[in-house]
């Protein structure tokens, strides 16, 4: 029974949901499900988990660019068939994990992975992303697929990870460093709670295409979309349209999300804001939001040097200044933000001072601060 374009309802199947996960567990995982006793990282990117049954599973984690062609996926399958009984998994941060159930199988797998390079010369399967290092950068679509980005995604991630490559393949840092990128304020991904967040920002208010707007948008939705109520109904001659109060606009782009006739992307306006000190785990301290470190860096394709340099500097400063187990946010709170800006040689500007709804809760209501 093949697909019939003229009768979509013909034995149509819907709502079956995802395939059951268990069929994809390698045997050692299925047999030891819920029985794991402890784990150890043998070397960066290589983990062993030991079961109450005495069974062991060795995991080799490799960094993937999460944009993957079927070609590279097939190559991953070849490797999994060769070494891993035909199973493989992806992590929550888009790394790939190859698992073997016996130490003897480990080195051949590692050697195989290390050997593989792209035509352009980059490694296909860098091993790492474990423990107190930098792991894969969670990111979004950027110029590759989305319509609202202020920056690219994959290209910036590639540039940053080339620079931090040794920290992906090593574990010299005081604790994990989780870097995320979102190409607009919609923040697809947990960038608002990352050790370091790379965020695409606009800096010009949307312009309104009066002739188009009533045709292509539901004007009331566009108006309601504005968090700062900067958009008001108005008229251009006979045309029902909207007017933007530029002084109230903070460039979130939500109006454009709702209405294609209000574009705000612009080469001169758009760029990157860097945020630091967020975390998600409940380990030691509660989860934290990332806070603004650098309000704006221009888009610098193809390699975004300023962004890369700034991130590298923050990571190195953290590496040398923080105590073991201290995430970036815990470290900064211990030394104080005034010291962070001083040591990181970052300018403190009015943009750093919150002025949104909860702003008052970020002001310093004590005489305690450092010189």
């Amino acid at each position, binding site marked *: 029974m093949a*697909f019939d374009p003229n009768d979509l309802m013909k034995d*149509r*199947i*819907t*709502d*079956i949901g*995802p*395939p*059951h996960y268990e069929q*994809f567990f*390698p045997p050692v995982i299925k047999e030891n499900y819920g029985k794991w006793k*402890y784990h150890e*990282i*043998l070397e960066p990117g290589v983990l062993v988990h030991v079961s109450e049954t005495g069974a062991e*599973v060795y995991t080799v984690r490799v*960094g993937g*660019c999460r*944009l993957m*062609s*079927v*070609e*590279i*996926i097939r190559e991953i*399958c070849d490797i*999994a068939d060769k070494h891993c009984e*035909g*199973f*493989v*998994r*992806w992590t929550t941060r888009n790394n*790939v994990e190859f698992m073997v159930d016996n130490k003897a199988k480990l080195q051949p797998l590692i050697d195989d992975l290390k050997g593989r390079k792209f*035509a352009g010369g*980059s*490694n296909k399967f860098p091993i790492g992303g*474990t423990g*107190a290092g930098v792991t894969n950068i969670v990111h979004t679509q950027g110029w590759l*697929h*989305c*319509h*609202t980005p202020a920056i690219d995604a994959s290209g910036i991630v*590639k540039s940053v990870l080339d620079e931090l490559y040794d920290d992906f393949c*090593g*574990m010299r840092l005081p604790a994990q460093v989780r870097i995320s990128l979102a190409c607009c*304020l*919609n923040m697809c*991904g947990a960038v*608002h709670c990352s050790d370091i967040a790379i965020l695409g920002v606009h800096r010009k208010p949307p312009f309104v295409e009066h002739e188009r707007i009533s045709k292509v948008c539901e004007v009331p939705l566009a108006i309601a979309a504005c968090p700062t109520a900067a958009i008001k109904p108005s008229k251009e001659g006979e045309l029902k349209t909207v007017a933007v109060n530029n002084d109230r606009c903070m460039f979130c782009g*939500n109006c454009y999300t709702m209405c294609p006739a209000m574009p705000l*992307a612009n*080469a001169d306006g*758009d760029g990157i804001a860097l945020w630091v000190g967020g975390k*998600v*785990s*409940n*380990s030691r301290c509660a989860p934290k939001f990332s806070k603004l470190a650098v309000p704006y860096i221009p888009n610098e*394709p*193809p390699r975004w040097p300023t962004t890369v340099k700034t991130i590298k500097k923050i990571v190195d400063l953290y590496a040398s200044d923080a105590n*073991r*187990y201290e995430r970036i946010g815990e470290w900064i709170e211990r030394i104080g933000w005034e010291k962070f800006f001083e040591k990181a040689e970052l300018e403190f500007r009015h943009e750093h001072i919150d002025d*949104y709804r909860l702003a008052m809760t970020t002001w310093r209501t004590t005489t305690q601060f450092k010189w």
Partner: protein
Amino acid sequence: MALKHKTPLLDELEKGRWPSFISDIKQMAEKKPMCEDLLGVMERSYEDKEGHWKHGGIVGVLGYGGGVIGRYCDRPDLFPNVAHFHTLRVNQPASKFYSTEQLRNVCELWERRGSGLTNMHGSTGDVILLGTTTDELEPVFYELTHNLNMDLGGSGSNLRTPSCCMGRARCEWSCLDTQAITYDLTNTFQDELHRPMFPYKFKFKTSGCPNDCVAAIARADCSIIGTWRDNIRIDQEAVRAYAAGEFAPNGNAHGTGATALDIQKEVCDLCPTRCIDWDGKNLKIWDENCTRCMHCINVMPRALRPGEDVGATILCGAKAPILEGAQLSSVIIPFIKMEEPYDEFKEFVEKMWDWWMDLGKNRERLGELIQRLGLREFLKAVELEPDPRMINTPRYNPYIFYDREDVPGGWEIDAVAFRKKHHA
């Protein structure tokens, strides 16, 4: 072989040690004109520092309100092969284990009917099939459901594809069957996932323990996080072994190898509630003061384990900034057992959704509605008693909405009697 468009800027991204997505796309471009033009659009964006995609409009598969993100190029004149470049979100298997057979089938299908490019995975967790034309959407869906036993994930004002950490599959700390929960919820709520009925998107994420490896507390309207009610299990022998340097601290996360662990400094002093005593021989944990942060367990995985009376803490409201600012999830159910068929939890979910669908404005996330109407109203709706574990601190402003029922005579003041007592 020479590609259709020169890409001097993108070529810079083939250099360096980290895997190059450009190199990868180029492999495809040799077979797929769509990918050739995609490289062209990207190069163009790299030149003028602006994206070249337009809003999606409504494309999708019959009977579903989500799962497809429409996308059109704003320069079809120059890049005709990506004039349409729609995306399908395919619901991943929980915790993302795959057989190579399954993956090869996906590849075969997607090379034939799409760009051959994917995201493994999208931020929500789906397998993203990146880029195809409108006419391919139904055939792809047909083959997914008939031949690959797969279905679409969520988009739009739907339930979004639930996801979870690997949990018990390969982690010793999981207090939950994260995959089982995710699989059950996904299937129980297929209708909500495929047909828009909510004010806005809604996300479930499940982590097996407070380390929260799927970032549920930051990204899910309903965060399900494993925890325990009894005591941390201690193997004193192993604790001493850590002190003696027989094991690598923190599962060797610092690459130190087996080396003596300063338990006082690296465990006791970093415990947020300082509820651990170490006398050099025995470790004493005052569990009544433990907040189950995982730190000590993380540092000594061979000596400490979560308790055995396990369940979940349910937190609600996390979201990205748009509209009212980013939120983390807040504790709503401090502890709930999570055992199939999860009836108690599902009843909670139904009450939560009824309230949200009833009172939520268009594009108002659950967390924003709770902000607007107050946690108290939400608790009433889901029939839960207030608990100090839901808050960091009680109110400090005196603007209290007292209950009319608690006030003798309710809200009435007898004006005449008042003025008899108090002359104007």
